[in-house]
């Protein structure tokens, strides 16, 4: 199944993984730096221990070598040996000392023998045993050599810079030179009489430095008090390069700083970057106090931190494994949430298309998702039931509607609806319309001849609307039709109709009725009113007005109600307009009633027209007045004009 890019499961998985990755990374970083600190501290201790112990060992050799000149100087300051004794003394000393290669006693000009400018017996371990040599000569002026000159100026013992002894064993040497003084102090302090030296071959130093194992590929080197290399795995560096010249050539100012620290400090441990030995490394150094030299040990960083890197490799692997596991788990969790949701989303689409056969019974979970699935199922079932009910209801309604429409047709057919109603009579004109508010209505009108001259006109309005009103109206209409006969006074007709209707009227419906009988020959108009609105009446001389005979009680409530009858005479052109309260109480969208005044106004405006036109105009005025508002009540208008009927204008 395709998982959409914005799916919940993807989001959950990604969020969980991101969160977990950040946490892992932070934990890893913290543990890395923390353990790095610990491991570095350990490494520093180890490295410093190593350099310290090696430098101590070297220092012992230097001290042992320094003892030789010290003893010789003491002898020379306390006694005055002759040449042979002196040479034997020096020779013996060299022979007995394990450490030193050679020794010299060099005198100030004329100091040993006034006749000799230079005198410096020198004994060294030659190939054939102890060899004696006189140092002072024209070609070798020891007086200007550092080993002689510097301790003389300083009046203190010094170790010289290492040098290659090209004359001797072609070995690297350093010389310890110690001044000895004339007996008896002068004013200017002790006067130097000469210098005693002990040569220390440095081959053992190179061997020693080379033999020290520093991690796997690290190494030791020794630099002098000026930073020059005394030993170094690269023989090119020895005595040629210094820490400072390397720093300059490699453009590495840090190396110069390290070099300064090496020649100034007792010991230390520092990072020296990659320039010095080609890879990132740490340097531990310790001072060799006698010559002031420094022993350095280069620890390749990756070897020093090998444990740490191993640890972190495995930690990182674990973290990666954990992340993968988390990916799987969070994927599963997210899937278990998202899959039912996706099913429900699909089901919703089905529901939208009307398919309500939804089954989530396989989702047996107690969590929110389960609840949602159950609610969803229930909703679908409810919907299904509702739709079934609705379908049935709709069918029933349609049936009722069709029945109602039939009823409406029947009702319509009950009212005279063919105009002109009496094409063969020209004494009057009549027009009537009934618009029920619902399919069928409670309003009705009727007109019929009682005999050849008497036209009976009825308009009625049953209380209420719809089917009950229609039924009541039907009864009323036929009661009136059956009851009305010539010469029967209208008040009695109404009284009789009333009595019939009131009897067994359990629903307490009633009807207002205005009925009149027009003698089309004479214009005499007899009428009675059972609670109905006053009709309008006008003729050529009088404008339309409500004519107000007594209204009388409504019909159908009280069986003993009394009605009165009245009469007036129509002149030709007299128009009677009867209507139901659906006209005056028609409401506009704003809630205003059509009102008697408006009715009067409109009728006055169209009074000259034919009855049909008056009626149609009035209805169209009402419908335009009521635009936007539902028709609240049945509307019925009946217009009767006495006099010669004119053909309709349209």
């Amino acid at each position, binding site marked *: 199944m395709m998982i959409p890019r914005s799916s919940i499961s993807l989001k959950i998985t990604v969020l969980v993984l991101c969160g977990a990755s950040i946490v892992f990374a932070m934990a890893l970083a913290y543990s890395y730096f923390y353990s790095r600190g610990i491991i570095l501290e350990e490494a520093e201790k180890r490295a410093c221990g190593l350099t310290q112990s090696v430098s101590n060992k070297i220092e012992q050799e230097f001290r042992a070598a320094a003892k030789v000149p010290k003893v010789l100087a003491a002898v020379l300051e306390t006694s005055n040996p002759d040449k042979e004794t002196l040479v034997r003394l020096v020779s013996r000393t060299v022979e007995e000392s394990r450490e030193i290669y050679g020794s010299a006693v060099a005198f100030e000009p004329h100091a040993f023998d006034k006749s000799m400018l230079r005198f410096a017996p020198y004994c060294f371990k030659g190939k054939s045993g102890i060899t004696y040599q006189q140092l002072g000569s024209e070609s070798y002026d020891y007086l*200007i050599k550092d080993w002689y000159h510097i301790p003389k*100026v*300083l009046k203190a013992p010094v170790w010289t810079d290492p040098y290659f002894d090209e004359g001797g064993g072609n070995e690297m040497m350093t010389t310890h030179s110690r001044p000895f003084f004339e007996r008896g102090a002068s004013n200017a302090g002790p006067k130097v009489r000469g210098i005693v030296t002990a040569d220390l071959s440095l081959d053992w130093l190179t061997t020693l430095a080379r033999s020290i194992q520093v991690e796997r590929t690290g190494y030791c080197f020794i630099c002098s008090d000026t930073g020059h290399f005394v030993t170094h795995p690269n023989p090119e560096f020895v005595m040629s390069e*210094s820490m400072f*010249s390397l720093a*300059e050539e490699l453009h590495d100012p840090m190396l110069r700083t390290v070099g300064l620290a090496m020649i100034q400090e007792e010991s230390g441990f520092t990072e020296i970057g990659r320039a010095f030995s080609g890879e990132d490394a740490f340097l531990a150094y310790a001072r060799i106090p006698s010559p002031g030299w420094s022993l350095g040990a280069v620890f390749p960083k990756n070897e020093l931190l090998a444990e740490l890197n191993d640890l972190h490799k495995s930690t990182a692997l674990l973290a990666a494994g954990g992340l993968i596991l988390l990916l799987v788990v969070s994927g599963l969790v997210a899937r278990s949430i998202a899959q039912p949701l996706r099913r429900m989303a699909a089901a919703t689409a089905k529901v939208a298309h009307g398919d309500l056969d939804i089954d989530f019974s396989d989702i047996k979970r107690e969590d929110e998702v389960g609840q949602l699935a159950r609610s969803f199922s229930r909703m679908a079932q409810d919907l299904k039931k509702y739709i079934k009910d609705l379908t049935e209801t709709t069918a029933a309604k349609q049936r009722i509607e069709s029945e109602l429409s039939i009823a409406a047709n029947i009702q319509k057919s009950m009212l005279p609806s063919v105009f002109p109603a009496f094409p063969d009579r020209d004494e009057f004109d009549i027009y009537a319309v009934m618009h029920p508010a619902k399919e069928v209505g409670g309003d009705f009108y009727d007109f019929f001849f009682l005999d050849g001259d008497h036209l009976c006109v009825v308009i009625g309005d049953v209380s209420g609307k719809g089917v009950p009103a229609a039924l009541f109206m039907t009864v009323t209409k036929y009661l009136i039709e059956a009851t009305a006969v010539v010469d029967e006074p209208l008040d009695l007709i109404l009284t009789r109709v009333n009595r019939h209707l009131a009897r067994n009227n359990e629903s307490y419906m009633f009807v207002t009725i205005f009925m009149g009988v027009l003698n089309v020959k004479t214009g005499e108009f007899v009428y009675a009113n059972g609670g109905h609105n006053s009709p309008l009446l006008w003729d050529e001389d009088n404008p339309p007005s409500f004519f107000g005979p007594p209204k009388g009680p409504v019909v159908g409530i009280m069986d003993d109600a009394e009605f009165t009858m009245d009469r007036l005479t129509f002149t030709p052109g007299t128009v009677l307009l009867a209507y139901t309260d659906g006209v005056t109480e028609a409401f506009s969208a704003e809630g205003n009633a059509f009102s008697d005044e408006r009715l009067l106004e409109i009728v006055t405006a169209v009074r000259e027209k034919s009855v049909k036109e008056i009626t149609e105009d009035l209805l169209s005025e009402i419908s335009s007045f009521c635009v936007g508002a539902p028709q609240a009540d049945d509307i019925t208008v009946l217009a009767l004009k006495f006099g010669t009927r004119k053909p309709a204008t349209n």
Partner: protein
Amino acid sequence: MQNFTPKYICKFAITILALLLFQPVMCPGSESVLKKATFCPQWIPQAQFAGYMVALEKGFYRDAGLDLNLMVGGPEKPAFVTLESGEATFCTDWLSSGIQQRDSGLPVVNLAQISQRSALILIGKKKSGILKAQDLNGKKIGLWPGQFRIQPKVFFEKYGLQVDIIPNYTSVSLFLKGGVDAMSAMWYNEYHDILNSGLNSDDLTLFFFSRLGLNFPEDGIYCLEKTLREDPQLCDAFVQASIKGWLYAFENQDYALDIVMKHAKAAHSATNKAHQRWMLARMKVLIIPEGDTSGIGKLDMADYALVSDILRDSRLIERVPQYEEFYRGPK
């Protein structure tokens, strides 16, 4: 395109024939016409002599018709001694030495004054309280012997300084180990040695004699008057090729340094490239101070007068040699 007419082929053949006939003349590199000469620099192989080494390596001397032998100089080979003995045809040394030699009877001629400025300096330790010239008063100052003391002594006299002069010889150890408070040094050599022995330039106060009214031009090329008289072309060719070597060295410092290191190594001199790089850069400033190569090898008359007057006043010479007799200059 040219047609290969008989006339053209004929011309071509004659040209080839001429080339074959005159070949020895056309190729000055051939051994038979090279003049042998020996050159002795006044000190051990280092970038102070890079120009000569490069000229040799690049074949500039050969191109100039010289079969040059470059000697290894040093304290055991005083340059003017090799000139006098005939071991060397040419040598370099300080102007003051050249004047002294001529005054003392060795008829040397300055063929070119290569170095225009004095590189001799005094280096004082700030730790010893030396910040300005007056601070040197009463201090122990390590001075090299001989010609190296001329300027310092005039300087001390000029500033009325009473100093304790301690002889200093070949190394900077006496200074580093605290035997003296200040020492004479070459700007291009010992100063850098000190810097590369663990002292920072901030720790030091430098006194340049070239800025103290005592600008003694130093390295110049010398030969005996006799050599110049007998073969002036040889002398001029040597000077020209040497100057060409210097200019090439300044333009191609890495190449020059490789050559210098090669010579230093051959002479078992313990040095390093950083040091020689420094030295070569300083030499450029000393030889072409304003970066103007047109004056290279010239001896300024005023400089000559200053040096020789001080030498006479210091009674190191009796008479000032004639400038015109003493100096020839590059041709």
